[in-house]
């Protein structure tokens, strides 16, 4: 009994001193806080604060002019029970993300791996070819020329030349094609930062590991990839996955530029579009905040799931 009280006291005391220790450490590292302050302040104001503001405003009715009025979860019930277009937007977003996310991720990884097999001089050129579309801004508008709705577009011209169609297809105005085309264009622009990260990751792997593995009975490059390369690359793959998820959910601008807003029959209407429609055009800030919160939850959930899955690579 006396022992337990004795052990309790030092713990308590150390907690006290820990607080004081923290305070001392903070004072000692004043410069560190000063160095972080400018960045962190802006980061809080323009990134963190908007998130919390969305959460709060999602529970209100707010039109930017009058003071927000608390309405509970009305926005959310309206969203899921009454808003058919939102349900459609959810479907489109999930289809788009489920295709572009994994495909762009695997494509980045695969191409980076292929490129790593090339001699160094060719490697730089090939890297540029694959990376260029992602840094070239709205160069993706060329797809609108390639798939223009008249016969001067390459796609229509080729199909008509081959006699497969008799009149031009209205690619970006046809609900049957809009989604597929947007996915293709999104993939075309998706070999960005994550792709470079993979390229760098492959280059930094120690070659002696492969030699050791070959002796230990690794027979071909696929086994090498699965048992050696990918496990070593796990940090890069984690980083790439985060970026792939982020991008696959945030592609609204590409669709706007290619198909206009709203897209034909809402065929490429996504949660992001729904959000800017209500927030930007209709000033229903409370409602659009609820949409933003739903999107947040989807993004974070995907991140958690993917990270779990990635930790199993090579095991």
């Amino acid at each position, binding site marked *: 009994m006396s022992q337990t009280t004795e052990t309790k006291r030092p713990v308590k005391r150390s907690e006290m001193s820990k607080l004081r220790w923290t305070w001392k450490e903070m004072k000692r590292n004043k410069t560190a806080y000063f160095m972080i302050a400018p960045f962190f302040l802006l980061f809080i104001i323009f990134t963190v604060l908007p998130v919390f503001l969305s959460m709060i405003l999602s529970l209100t009715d707010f039109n930017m002019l009058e003071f927000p009025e608390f309405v509970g979860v009305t926005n959310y019930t309206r969203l899921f029970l009454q808003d058919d277009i939102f349900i459609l937007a959810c479907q489109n977003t999930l289809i788009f993300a489920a295709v572009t996310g994994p495909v762009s991720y695997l494509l980045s990884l695969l191409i980076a791996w292929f490129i790593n097999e090339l001699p160094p001089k060719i490697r730089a050129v090939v890297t540029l070819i694959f990376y260029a579309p992602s840094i070239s801004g709205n160069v993706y508008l060329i797809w609108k020329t390639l798939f223009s709705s008249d016969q001067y577009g*390459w796609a229509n011209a080729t199909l008509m030349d081959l006699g497969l169609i008799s009149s031009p297809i209205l690619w970006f105005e046809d609900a049957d094609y809009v989604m597929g085309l947007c996915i293709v264009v999104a993939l075309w622009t998706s070999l960005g930062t994550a792709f470079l990260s993979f390229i760098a990751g492959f280059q930094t792997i120690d070659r002696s590991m492969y030699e050791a593995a070959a002796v230990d009975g690794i027979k071909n490059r696929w086994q090498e990839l699965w048992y050696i390369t990918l496990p070593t690359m796990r940090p890069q793959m984690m980083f790439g996955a985060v970026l792939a998820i982020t991008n696959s*959910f945030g592609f609204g601008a590409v669709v706007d530029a290619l198909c206009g807003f709203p897209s034909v029959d809402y065929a490429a209407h996504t949660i992001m579009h729904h959000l800017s429609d209500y927030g930007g055009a209709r000033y229903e800030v409370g409602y659009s905040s609820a949409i933003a919160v739903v999107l947040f939850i989807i993004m974070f959930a995907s991140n958690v799931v993917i990270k779990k899955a990635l930790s199993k690579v090579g095991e």
Partner: protein
Amino acid sequence: MAAKVKEKKLKKLRTRGHRVVLNRSAGGDGGIAFMLIILGAFMFLPMYYVVIQSLKPLDELFMFPPRFYVMKPTFDNFGDLVTLMSDSWVPFSRYIFNTVFITICGTVGNLIFASMAAYALAKLRFPGRNAIFQIIVMSLMFHSTVNQVTHFIILSSFGWVDTYLSIIVPSMAGTMGLYLMKQFMETSVPDTVLESARLDGASEFRTYLTIAMPMVKPAWMTLIIECFKTLWNSGASIYIHSEELKTFNYAIQQIVTGGIARSGAGAAATVVMMLVPILIFVFNQSQIVETMGSSGMKD
């Protein structure tokens, strides 16, 4: 015995050129080359087509079927671009100025703020360091456009809507550059070097500026291109209404959507726009890839 087997196995590994090539079959090499050519064509041809379009005279633009080469290359489209833009009531040069101004201010601000914070997060031990970094990493997980409405409310409460500030200031707190810079500093700036600078009496800020920063030049370029590509390519913004504050990219979009007759000028404008980031990347590719080597995320 074991050593003998090992030697035998190593002998089996084929050599190609001067270096040992492990576990590589000719069929696999061919397959990879084939895949790279197919995928490379998919990536490259649209880019190439933009350039070709920009060099086509008007009659070739209207040729059926469209060609992937140009018979009489001309720079007329680039000239048309200037005349077309000078007809608009906001002069062409203004759009370019806006883009250049926003890009330079934002990128320089991001470089200063983010590298300072990255140094503190990578090299100084202070309470709250991990928590701060975790929050920043979390922000990489969502696209900033989710925030657009509340972001707008905050900007308007500062009275920054429809000013350059609405684009420049938030971009200074871009997290991607900070993340890459911090990861790179951790691996490539040895603590011993910083320690000896401190022993010589250098202040923490001085150590950052004169010791750490020169050592992470590759990361500068990476941060710059990350921030640059976003700002340079920023188009229509919901925070800017005035025509005279809009960006070059926005102006291009107006031209390109102007129909087939303008597709030559539109292609010319696109070429101008894409040339800048591509050139920056070409000249810094090895440094950027070097930085990316440490970009990995540990759970």
